[in-house]
C-alpha cells in the first residue's frame, strides 16, 4: 500500500471506533488531558528509536530521564525506590505479589475482591504453577475491604495482602488500618494504584511495603488498553528482590555524574532461570510520557488536577443520587462511583449511545451480587453538560424498568 492508502485505512478504522463519543468509562483506564508537548518530545528520534540503554555513554538521555521518573514515583507514592517501569498495572501488581512471596518465603496470598477483576485474573494466571495459594477478602457496605474478614483470612503462611486504592469501585481504602492488621501477622502489604492522578490529593499508601502502580493516567493515551505503564515501588531494603530494570547514579573516570542500568544481577540476562522475574523489556517510551506529564503538572498542578477530578465526580454522584442509588456512600471516593439502577445498565447504555455517549461499565459480569450496578468515572475532561445529559438519560425510565433486549444480553456475556 502507498502511504496515503495506509493513512486512509487507519483513519477509517478510527471512525469505526467511537471517535466522537463522550465516555464515562474508567475502571483501570482513564481519559485525562495530554499536554501537547508530550508527543512533541517523545517523537524525537533520539528517544523514539533508541534501544535499551545498556551502553550508558550513548544513552544518557534515556537514563537520566528514567532516574527522574524513579525519583518522582518515589515522591508521589511515598516509597523509597521505584523501578524503571513494568508492562502495566496488572502485571506490576502480580510481580509485586511474587516479590513479597520471595521476601517472606511464605506461600499464600490474600487478595481483596475490590482489586480490579482483570488484575486478579492475571495474578491467578501467574500463580497457578508457582504453588501459591490465593484467598480473597470481600468488601463491606462502604465498598471498602471488610476488615474482619481480612483479619480472618490471614494465616501464618500469608506472604502478603494485595489491595487496591482507589479500589475498583472508586473508593479509597483505609490503608493505615489495613497495614496494622497485615503487619501484626508478619505479612506484607501490597497496594495497587490504578488511577495515578489520585496521588495529587489522596494520601499515598505510605504504610505499604510494596506499591504497584498503573501510571496510564499520567499522559498515556487510552489506546484501547495499551501500551500502558506499570511501576513497582517499595522500601529500599527490598530492592534486591525487585523485578525489572533500575537506573542508578554513577560517576565516570573524571568524576562526572552519569547514570547506568544497575543491580542487573537480579535480571534474566545474568541470572537466567534464577532471576527475580523473566521480564526484559520495560515500557521506556511510555514511562517518558509519564515523566513529562509529571514534570508539566509538578507539585502544584497535580494537586489542582486531582481536585478537579474530585469535584466533577462529587457533582456527578450527587446528580445521579437524585434518580438512582449511588452505592458505597460510607467511604470517600476519588473520580469513580457505582450507580445502582432499577433498569438494566445495558439498556441505559444503549440509550446513551444514541446520544453519542458511553455510559458506565456494567458490573454484572464481575460482581453479579451487585445486580444492576455500573461504574462511572468523571475526570477533568467530563463537562457538566455531559453529566447532566447522562443523568437525564439514566433518569428517563427509572421506575419503569424494561427487560434487556437480546442485543444487550450478548454484551453481558463479556
Amino acid at each position: 500500500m502507498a502511504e496515503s492508502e495506509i493513512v486512509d485505512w487507519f483513519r477509517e478504522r478510527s471512525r469505526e471506533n467511537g471517535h466522537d463519543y463522550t465516555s464515562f468509562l474508567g475502571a483501570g483506564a482513564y481519559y485525562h488531558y495530554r499536554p501537547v508537548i508530550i508527543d512533541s518530545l517523545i517523537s524525537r528520534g533520539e528517544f523514539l528509536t533508541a534501544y535499551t540503554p545498556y551502553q550508558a555513554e550513548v544513552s544518557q538521555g534515556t537514563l537520566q530521564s528514567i532516574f527522574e521518573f524513579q525519583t518522582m514515583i518515589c515522591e508521589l507514592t511515598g516509597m523509597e525506590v521505584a523501578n524503571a517501569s513494568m508492562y502495566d498495572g496488572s502485571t506490576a501488581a502480580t510481580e509485586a505479589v511474587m516479590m513479597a512471596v520471595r521476601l517472606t518465603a511464605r506461600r499464600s496470598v490474600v487478595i481483596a475482591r475490590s482489586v480490579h477483576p482483570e488484575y486478579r485474573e492475571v495474578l491467578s494466571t501467574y500463580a497457578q504453577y508457582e504453588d501459591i495459594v490465593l484467598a480473597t477478602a470481600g468488601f463491606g457496605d462502604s465498598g471498602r475491604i471488610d476488615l474482619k474478614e481480612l483479619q480472618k483470612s490471614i494465616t501464618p503462611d500469608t506472604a502478603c495482602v494485595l489491595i487496591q486504592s482507589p479500589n475498583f469501585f472508586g473508593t479509597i481504602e483505609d490503608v493505615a488500618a489495613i497495614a496494622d492488621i497485615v503487619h501484626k501477622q508478619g505479612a506484607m502489604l501490597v497496594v495497587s494504584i490504578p488511577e495515578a492522578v489520585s496521588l495529587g490529593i489522596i494520601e499515598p499508601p505510605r504504610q505499604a511495603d510494596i506499591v504497584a502502580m498503573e501510571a496510564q493516567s499520567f499522559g498515556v493515551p487510552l489506546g484501547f488498553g495499551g501500551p500502558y505503564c506499570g511501576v513497582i515501588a517499595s522500601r529500599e531494603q527490598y530492592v534486591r528482590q525487585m523485578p525489572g530494570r533500575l537506573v542508578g547514579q554513577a560517576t565516570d573516570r573524571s568524576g562526572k555524574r552519569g547514570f547506568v542500568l544497575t543491580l542487573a544481577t537480579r535480571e534474566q540476562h545474568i541470572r537466567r532461570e534464577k532471576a527475580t522475574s523473566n521480564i526484559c523489556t520495560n515500557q521506556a517510551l511510555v514511562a517518558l510520557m509519564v515523566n513529562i506529564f509529571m514534570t508539566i503538572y509538578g507539585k502544584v498542578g497535580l494537586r489542582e488536577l486531582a481536585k478537579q477530578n474530585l469535584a466533577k465526580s462529587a457533582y456527578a454522584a450527587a446528580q445521579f443520587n437524585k434518580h438512582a442509588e449511588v452505592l458505597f456512600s460510607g467511604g470517600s471516593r476519588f473520580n469513580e462511583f457505582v450507580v445502582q439502577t432499577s433498569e438494566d445498565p445495558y439498556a441505559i447504555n444503549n440509550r446513551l449511545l444514541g446520544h453519542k455517549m458511553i455510559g458506565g461499565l456494567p458490573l454484572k459480569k464481575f460482581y453479579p451480587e451487585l445486580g444492576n450496578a455500573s461504574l462511572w468515572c468523571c475526570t477533568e475532561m467530563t463537562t457538566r453538560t455531559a453529566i447532566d445529559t447522562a443523568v437525564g438519560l439514566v433518569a428517563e425510565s427509572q421506575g419503569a424498568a424494561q427487560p434487556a433486549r437480546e442485543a444487550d444480553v450478548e454484551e453481558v456475556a463479556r
Partner: protein
Amino acid sequence: MKHMTRKATRHVSHNEGLIFEKSSAGKAAWKLPPLDVPEVDAAKLLGSLQRNHLGHMPEVSEIEIIRHFTRLSTWNYAIDLGMYPLGSCTMKYNPRVNEVASRFEGLANGHPYQPEKISQGALRILKTLSECLIEITGMDAITLQPAAGAHGELTGLLMVRAHHQSKGHPRKKVLIPDSAHGTNPASAATVGYAVENLKSNSQGMVDVAALAAQMNEDVAALMLTNPNTLGVFEREIHKIADIMHAKGGLLYMDGANMNALVGKVRPGDFGVDLMHLNLHKTFSTPHGGGGPGSGPVAVKKILEPFLPKPVVITKSDGTLGFEYDRPQSVGRVRAFYGNFGMFVRALAYIFANGPDGLRQTTEDAVLNANYIRKGLEGSYDLPYSTPSMHEVVFSDKLQAKKGVRTMDIAKRLIDYGFHPYTTAFPLIVPGALMIEPTESESMEEMDLFIEAMRSIAEEVEEDPQMVLSAPHCTRVSRLDEVAAARKPVLRWKPPS
C-alpha cells in the same frame, strides 16, 4: 582514528542538570480550564485521607521542559542517527506513518471497555494483524495479549503446560540450548519447569544426537531460537521437530530472529508448534529506549483451546467481538487486550511492504549481514564458519592477544559514530561481537561501519591503550558500574 570524520564530528552538547535542580516555586507549565461544577472542600470529602504536600515534585516552565528533554535526547544514540548494529535486537528503521496511524482519535482514545458495536475499528485491526501474522508464521491461531517477547514466552509455556496437563501429565522440564537468550530459562522457571541445558555442536547448532538422547517423556518442550543466536539456521529443524514429537514433546520457537525468515519460510511448515514474535524487532515498532514491546504468540491447532482470553471472533451478525467463554484457556496474562498501539504500527508496516516487500526485506537483511561478514573477515575471528543469516557473530580472539576485549572495541566504535554491536552474547562464544545490520542500512552506511571496525582492529595492533580507554568523544567516559551497584543511588534527594 583515521576515518573518524567520515561518520561523526564532535560538536557542542548542552549540559543539563536534573529537573529537580531547575525547579523553583511559582513556575508552572500547566493551566486547567475553569471548573464548571461547584468546587469541593477536599478536607471535608476526604478527611484524614487528604494529602497535604507532594514532596519534591518539580515546578518548571514549558520552555524549560522542552529544553530539558531536548537536551537529554541529544545525549542518546538512535536509529535515526545511523546504523544500530545490535545483534538479535533488529534495530530497523521505524516508519513514521506508523506513528500517524496510531494517533488517530478513535484509536488513541478508544477505551478498552467501550461497547463492541463502537469498537469495530479496533477489533478489525486485531483481526487483520492476527491473520497476517498467522500467514507469515504458518500457524493456526494467535494471541496478541503478551506485552513483550519474554511475556510471550511465559504465555507460550503456560499453554505448553496446559496442553500436557490436558493429557494427564504436565511433564517436568524444558530443554534450552546454551546459546539461548536469558529470558528463555527465566520464563520456563516461572511456569514451574526445570531447565535442562542442551549443548551446541561444533557448528553452533543443536546437537541432534544429544537432543535425541536427552529427550524423554519428562520433557515438555524444546525452546529453540531459529535462526539461532549465532545467526545460523538450524538446518536439521525437521529432524529436531520429529524427535520432540515422537515423545509427545512440543517445539517452541523464540521468534526474536524472525527477520531472517519472513516471507521465505514458515515455522509452522517446519514443525514448530508454537512461537512468539517481537513486533518491536521484526515488525518495526519503535524500541523507544527499552519498550514498549509486543510479543504475540502463534500456535498450532492443538494449542488453540489454551490461548489467553479473550479471543477475537466473528459473530453471527458478521460483526467482530471478544469471546470470553474459553474453559481451557490459561487465563489472562495482562489486563485488556495487549499493547494495541503496537498492533497498529506493526500492521501499518505489513501494509506498507506487502508480501513481496516483506520477502525483499528478509533477503536484504541477510545480504547485509553477509556483506559485513565478508568485510570484517580477516580483521576479526569468525568462530563458526556456518553460513550467516541476518546476523554474524565474530569473537575478540585476535584482539584479546593485545588485552583488548569485545566491550573495548564496542566502546571505541562509539567514537566512530556508531552504536556498539551486542557484546558478550551468545554465551557460547567467548568475547562475542554480534552484529545485525538489518535491511535498513545502505551500502554506504555499512562501508563506513566496516571501515570503522577495520580501523579499530589496526588501532588494537598499534595503540591498544587508545581502544582500552574508549570512548573518548562522549559526554561521559566509562561509568563505574561496579560502584553504582555496590552503593545504589536510585533517586535524587534534595541536598541536606
